[in-house]
């Protein structure tokens, strides 16, 4: 399941290099639960709602969105504890490049939750330390 972007706005004349259409200024926006409900340009076609657990608590998110997005929308920003100084860490790049977002998912450590897609019933745990490499399957 993926999120499909559609531009609800017909294109106006270009308002310059890197231009933003000024017609959208002042549009009303409604927010709910960390999710954008209405946006002047984008429509978010949400997937199926699924349940998953985060450190034992039950949360909801949309199937197919990155786990980090579902957590963030639910107000969870701390994803792991750093191995040496035990500091809280969240995501940084959100595209799978930096390893700042490693969590333990369904028993598997070091999962980059900014790119790992959410599925029904996943068990997501704040990772403490480096995690253990699993033996070859």
């Amino acid at each position, binding site marked *: 399941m*993926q*999120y499909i*972007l559609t*531009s609800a706005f017909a*294109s*106006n*004349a*270009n*308002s*310059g*290099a*890197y*231009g*933003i*259409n*000024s017609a*959208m*200024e002042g*549009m009303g*926006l*409604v*927010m709910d639960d*960390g*999710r*954008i409900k209405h*946006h*002047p*340009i*984008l429509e*978010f076609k*949400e997937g199926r709602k699924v349940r998953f657990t985060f450190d034992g608590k039950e949360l909801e998110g949309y199937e197919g*969105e*990155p786990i980090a*997005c579902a957590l*963030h*929308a639910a107000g969870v*920003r*701390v*994803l792991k504890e*750093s191995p040496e100084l035990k*500091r*809280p*860490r*969240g*995501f*940084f*790049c*959100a*595209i*799978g*490049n*930096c390893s700042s977002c490693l969590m333990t998912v369904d028993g598997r450590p070091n999962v980059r939750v*900014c*790119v790992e897609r959410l599925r029904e019933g996943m068990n997501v745990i704040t990772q403490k330390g480096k995690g253990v490499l699993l033996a070859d399957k």
Partner: protein
Amino acid sequence: MSSLLTSEICVVGAGPAGLKAAISARDMGAHVTLVDSEVNLGGQLVKQTHKFFGSRGQFAGMRGIDIAKLLADEVSRDPSVDVMCESQVVGFYEDGTLAIEKDDSIQFLKPERVICAAGASERMLSFPNNDLPGVYGAGAAQTLMNVYGVKPGNRVLMIGAGNIGLIVSYQLLQAGVEVAAVLEAMPHVGGYDVHARKIQRAGIPILTSHTIKEAHGTRSVEDATVWALDSEFHPVIDSERYFEVDTICLAVGLTPLTELLWQAGCRMVYVPELGGYAPLRCENYETTHPGVFVAGDLAGIEEASSAMIEGVVAGLSAARSLGYETDGFEERLRLAKNELEALRQGPTGQKVRQGIRRLMALREVGEGI
């Protein structure tokens, strides 16, 4: 270990550069495998809701998201382009073999030519507590809100008033997020005036000659201290100001994503004007590793229009080197190179021109690691 797959040309990365490279190589008659780690093709374009200027009227006035859709449709429809989404290239061996991870398993592909167009990554900035959750790359904030519809925070401090910092600040407002201020270490705004004015009209201060001193918070960002910088970029005593914010976005520049090129043994040189280490390459965008071409931000940080044209040059040249020939080839290549040059004219292109000059000079003298 799985068996070794083959293909004529493998394009790594389906941003504007990779998409155009694939299309151009295909136009010459080559068979292309296009690999991208994301679900959606388009690279940075999939999160850019603002209108772009295109080269020579091409795509002018279109939003990034719409350009992405157009190019993605073209390659998806084409039987001579194999598209592999959600597939990350994790290794590039010196013999030209690529290791590609998909669904937790690795496939090996040994194409005859490789065009690397993996884009860029965001720079970090050092300040106390920069590792706190809530300190995000501006591109990360953009991905969260524009691709997945999730607010990156409630109140944001933006660091950097280049185009990215300004555009993302405006997009944050559109997503219903407050922006406390935009900081810029330089004495002037780096991005275009149109963007700066939009931000200012919305009542957001742009503090030039200012930077972040420190972030604070126990589990995540709760506030931030900023201070002024003098003409030598030293902090000004007693100039501290506090901002209550839950998110700090860094828009302090990009650097080419070159790990794969290092692995393959392409010679690399440090060119600050191009964003850091960049591959040595010839006019046709072939690196020092024969058969390995580059295009887009990975070849030097620029913009989407130049990334697309570099993609054209690399795509045409890679196909040509395999023996493919079409009537208009020479003319198309020449036009693309002219177009690149035209794009880099004027004051905004000065830095890039200087960087490329430096790159070419280093190549002449055989520099590079």
